[in-house]
């Protein structure tokens, strides 16, 4: 048997489990945590402290643990900063201690402790000041290395994490006596109940106490209640689930550790689930957390909280040592002594700070005494006690069980900035009046520290919560519980100590709080930032109130006057993987595929993300060694014969209604009311402030029916704005809107042979001649012997071009057909790169030009903003500030010689300084034009319309690049538009 294993408890003594800690093999039992199993094996030293690298052991038995943080598992599953107190032991578990250089026993960085006077609170802010350049490259990396916690493996996490959503009438948080009574009360009433419990067993403190309920063990009552709850369809029991945040409207975040108790999740099963719980009412029954008393060297392994020592003995049948002294300021500490004695553990003394300490059998009670020091390098070996009479006594022991009182677990009650109030009888903060909407609190979490109070409170608060929902619940029969004595006299720290720890995780001592006060950091929020009190993974769950009490003592204020810091979610650390859920890697966001995607993949297309869409960027051929080669070919083939591009991604919005034309007249800056049926018009949309925000076309299919197209990126934004306009700005209009973007596969067919290619698939009764179907026509046609389709004669490339749309399910087949039928013309598919090159050659603006800062005038489309009608943004577009004489105008830029035009570069006069003051404009788009055989671009230039032919310097100081460019028309090719109209 392990050295410190006791009899009884809730572990299975017949179920051994093998595990390793720092490479050494140990044996635990089913039902153990890593902490309890290590204690049973006589291991008290579990880690090193954050700053001073002092030896540290486990302090608590729950998620509030500040010290016993380990790196759990290995490889991709290695998880740093995992609390040994919450890790369920499983066969093959592997854990390593963290934050030491060398072995845990002989940590080289333990030397930090020798230089402790230099590392007092705020030392970062006072040292490493010079030389300034050393901070980033030397000091900070060194400090981070020395003061880190665990490390990660840098391997990919192999596990999956889920997210989920639950709904209930009553969410009960915590399954101790209050939570169980509440859940049963609500469950019997038929309400939809969720009871979430952080532990893997229900019962809360009842699992850790010997207290009887109805004359039987507390766990018997727990088992009975759990069985009934499990039998109710309307109750969902969620063990291993920590509610980590209270959010608006009764929504709670909870992490369920589905597979953490296994060596690895079952294939395909999630490791953890992040639940969003929508509750109509919530009852916090999260219990209380014991606090330590600060005294000299109170951080040695073996110094633990008394309630935790009791839990280890009663639940996990283990003890940190066979000889344990108790140090307390309240009656609860005496229960630990009694329970340890009953388990056969020696308790040499109960050191009670109170002169009126109660009598105890089996041990000596030292009333009015205090521990003033401990000894023991890697674990406590003795304590030095100052007796009431002023004499000192050294008591050998291997552990100290400390109780400074209990703090209600406030986190969830304060997540919406509620402030707790001070409760003097229990010397602790309790939830205040401003709880999150729909939330109430029961049990120790609201200061009801006895089991009978918790049971009654749980049942009553559940009835109250349900009554507010119109559900009548009846009282349940509560078990009889013996009266408990909970007397306490405030005692926070032993005076005169040189190094008495308050916050174990951050190495904050009483002296640090005094230093913060001395240096003017007296507000609790300043105290926290200056000393790091209450930061890091435990968020000061065992430390905060003691820190406040010490500050209050120094300032002469009361503790409530001193106040608390803000509580924020999450209540316990949540791994990034859990927050991400399945939105990782390739599934980080949904992918939208075009109708020709599969075909494009078969062609070896290179894809680019445009929003969620994957679009073919270019279609390389085997003989092509560089993307530019491919793009040049696609451009030249299109301009020379015919090319096809999938333009399905452009937004398509169906606009119908008697007022559809009038509505579009409001939406677009230019006029649409008189657009003839069967015609398409280019349109520009302005924001309300007069800045251009999207462009596209609107095709009129009937008097009361238009199809509006938008840019790919703005499809959702335009639709949303149209809905806003329809519902809020022009509710009197008869307009109906719906997106049809995905319903139609749409291909641009461009080039001098575009008509010939189309004529091979468009059914013969549709006349595609220039006379019958001129530029900017649209119509409903049929292709391939009867498939309904829409045809638009519009051009982005500047060539004779059409856009052909068919129901999406035929999109793949249509692309294949176009390629087959186009063979005789040498047809090429072209991607977004060639599309971009051709639109720059043609001078068409895209998001790079309509970039949220430019007006219609800047774009050279000032005259499009109709003054004959009112449209969104038209009035504000006339502001003088947007209409100066030397305002930016869209121009073309042609590199001189071998220069390269670079998007983002700025334009400067050929002679003169290069600085922001003399900036003449900037380049928005650039490409190599295979037609012009040189680098070209578009950009905005001050007074650009009047500077054609001027030579400018194009500078990019960030990259040290410069070129000479000539200002030309933005329409590099076919400025008269002759090619479009043939």
């Amino acid at each position, binding site marked *: 048997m392990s050295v410190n294993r006791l009899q009884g408890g809730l572990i299975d003594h017949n179920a051994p489990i093998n595990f390793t800690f720092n490479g050494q093999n140990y044996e635990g039992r089913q039902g153990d945590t890593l902490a309890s199993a290590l204690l049973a094996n006589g291991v008290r030293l579990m880690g090193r402290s954050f700053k001073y690298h002092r030896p540290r052991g486990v302090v608590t038995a729950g998620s509030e643990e500040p010290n016993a943080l380990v790196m759990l598992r290995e490889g991709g599953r290695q998880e740093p900063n995992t609390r040994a107190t919450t890790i369920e032991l499983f066969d093959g578990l592997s854990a390593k201690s963290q934050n030491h250089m060398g072995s845990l026993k002989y940590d080289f960085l333990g030397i930090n402790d020798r230089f402790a006077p230099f590392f007092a609170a705020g030392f970062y802010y006072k040292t490493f000041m010079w030389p300034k350049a050393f901070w980033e490259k030397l000091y900070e990396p060194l400090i981070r290395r020395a003061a880190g916690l665990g490390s990660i493996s840098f391997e990919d996490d192999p596990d*999956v994490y889920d997210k989920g959503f639950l709904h209930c009438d009553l969410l009960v948080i915590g399954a101790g006596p209050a939570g169980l009574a509440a859940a049963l009360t609500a469950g019997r009433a038929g309400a939809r109940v969720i009871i979430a419990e952080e532990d893997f067993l229900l019962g809360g403190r009842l699992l850790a106490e010997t207290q009887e309920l109805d004359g039987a063990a507390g766990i018997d009552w727990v088992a009975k209640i759990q069985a009934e709850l499990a039998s109710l369809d309307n109750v969902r029991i969620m063990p291993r689930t920590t509610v980590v945040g209270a959010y608006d409207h009764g929504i709670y975040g909870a992490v369920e550790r589905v597979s953490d108790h296994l060596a690895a999740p079952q294939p395909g099963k999630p490791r953890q689930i992040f639940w969003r719980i929508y509750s109509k009412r919530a009852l916090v029954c999260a219990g209380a957390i014991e606090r330590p008393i600060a005294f000299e060297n109170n951080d040695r392994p073996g110094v633990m909280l008394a309630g935790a020592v009791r839990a280890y003995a009663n639940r996990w049948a283990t003890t940190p040592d066979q000889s344990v002294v108790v140090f307390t300021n309240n009656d609860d500490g005496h229960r630990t002594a009694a329970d340890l004695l009953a388990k056969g553990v020696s308790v040499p003394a109960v050191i009670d700070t109170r002169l009126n300490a109660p009598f105890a059998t089996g041990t000596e009670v030292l009333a009015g005494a205090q521990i003033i020091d401990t000894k023991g390098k890697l674990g406590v070996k003795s304590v030095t006690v100052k007796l009431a009479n002023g004499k000192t006594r050294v008591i050998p022991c291997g552990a100290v069980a400390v109780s400074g009182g209990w703090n209600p677990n406030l986190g969830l009650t304060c997540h919406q900035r509620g402030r707790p109030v001070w409760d003097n009888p229990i010397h602790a903060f309790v939830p205040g009046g401003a709880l999150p909407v729909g939330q109430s609190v029961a049990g120790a979490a609201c200061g009801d520290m006895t089991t009978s109070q918790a049971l009654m409170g749980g049942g009553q608060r559940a009835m109250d919560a349900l009554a507010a929902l119109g559900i009548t619940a009846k009282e349940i029969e509560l078990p009889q519980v013996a009266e408990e004595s909970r007397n306490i006299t405030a005692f926070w720290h032993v005076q005169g100590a040189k190094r008495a720890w308050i916050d174990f995780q951050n190495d904050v001592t009483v002296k640090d709080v005094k230093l913060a006060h001395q240096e003017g950091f007296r507000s609790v929020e300043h105290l926290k930032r200056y000393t790091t009190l209450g930061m890091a993974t435990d968020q000061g769950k065992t430390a905060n109130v003691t820190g406040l009490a010490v500050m209050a003592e120094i300032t002469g204020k009361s503790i409530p006057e001193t106040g608390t810091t803000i509580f924020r979610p999450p209540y316990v650390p949540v791994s990034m993987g859990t927050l991400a859920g*399945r939105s990782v890697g390739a599934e980080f966001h949904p992918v939208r595929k075009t109708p020709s995607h599969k075909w494009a993949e078969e062609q070896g297309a290179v894809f680019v993300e445009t929003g969620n869409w994957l679009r073919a960027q270019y279609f390389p051929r085997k003989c092509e060694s560089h993307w530019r080669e491919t793009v040049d070919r696609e451009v030249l083939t299109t301009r020379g014969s015919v090319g096809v591009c999938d333009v399905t991604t452009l937004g398509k919005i169906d606009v119908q209604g008697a007022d559809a034309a009038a509505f579009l007249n409001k939406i677009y800056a230019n006029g649409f009311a008189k657009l003839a049926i069967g015609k398409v018009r280019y349109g520009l949309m302005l924001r309300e402030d007069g800045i251009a925000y999207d462009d596209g076309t609107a095709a009129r299919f009937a008097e009361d029916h238009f199809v509006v197209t938008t840019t790919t990126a703005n499809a959702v934004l335009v639709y949303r704005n149209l809905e806003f306009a329809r519902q809020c700005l022009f509710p009197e209009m008869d307009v*109906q809107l719906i997106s049809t973007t995905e319903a139609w596969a749409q291909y641009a067919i461009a080039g001098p042979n575009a008509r010939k290619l189309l004529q091979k698939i468009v059914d013969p009764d549709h006349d595609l001649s220039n006379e019958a179907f001129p530029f900017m026509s649209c119509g409903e046609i049929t292709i391939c012997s009867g498939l309904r389709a829409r045809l638009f004669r519009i051009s982005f490339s500047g060539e004779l071009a059409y856009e052909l749309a*068919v129901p999406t*399910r035929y999109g793949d087949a249509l692309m294949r057909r176009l390629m087959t039928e186009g063979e005789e013309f040498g047809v090429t598919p072209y991607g977004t790169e060639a599309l971009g090159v051709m639109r720059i050659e043609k001078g068409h603006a895209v998001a790079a030009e309509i970039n949220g800062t430019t007006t219609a005038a800047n774009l050279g489309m000032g005259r499009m903003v109709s003054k004959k009608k009112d449209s969104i943004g038209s009035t504000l577009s006339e502001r003088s500030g947007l209409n100066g004489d030397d305002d930016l105008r869209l121009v073309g830029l042609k590199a001189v010689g071998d220069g390269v035009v670079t998007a983002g570069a700025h334009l400067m006069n050929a002679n003169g300084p290069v600085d922001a003051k003399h900036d003449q404009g900037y380049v928005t788009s650039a490409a190599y034009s295979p037609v012009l055989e040189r680098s070209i671009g578009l950009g905005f230039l001050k007074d650009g319309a009047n500077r054609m032919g001027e030579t400018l310097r194009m500078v990019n100081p960030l990259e040290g690049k410069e070129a000479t460019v000539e200002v030309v028309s933005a329409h590099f090719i076919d400025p008269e538009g002759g090619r479009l109209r043939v």
Partner: protein
Amino acid sequence: MFDLKPTTALGEENARIDVVGAFTISENPNCSLASLAARKGQEAVVAGAIEVALGIDLPGPGGCVTKDDHRFWWSGPGQWMIEADHDTHPLLAQEIKEIVRDAGAVTEQTDGWCLFDIEGANPEALFERLCAVDVPDMSIGTATRTNIHHIGCFLIREEARFNVVGPRSSAGSLHSALVEVAAGLP
């Protein structure tokens, strides 16, 4: 008859059917869809025309009504989605337009969406990991709009199955979400 071969939303020739644990997740490409929006002040006229022609009482918010060939579900104030078999109603939008005439705006939506039928015991367990809808509280014959893995969808509950109607271009991502989450259930 035209000679272009259709593909499913998942880009295949045939519909995908996955049996994952207790669930069967089937792509249903044989669907015609149309949207119907009543013209301003014409809600009663539209409702009357549909009632006369199809015997269907247009559903209110959250409602979904199936009768004979057609299924209507509410999609917004004065707006509905309509579904019918593609084989028998390939031009559903035209059919509906002929019924409501100038009282309603009808738009073809057939290929704007993908449909997945989900059958299996305890569908609540699946959907509670997919969307925020209170599925246990969702009665038979209801439809709602929700997000499934960041994808806006309609969720429809029928007698023994659920239908997820999502945007066609994201069919692959939606299908992955359905199948992978189903595989992760206990």
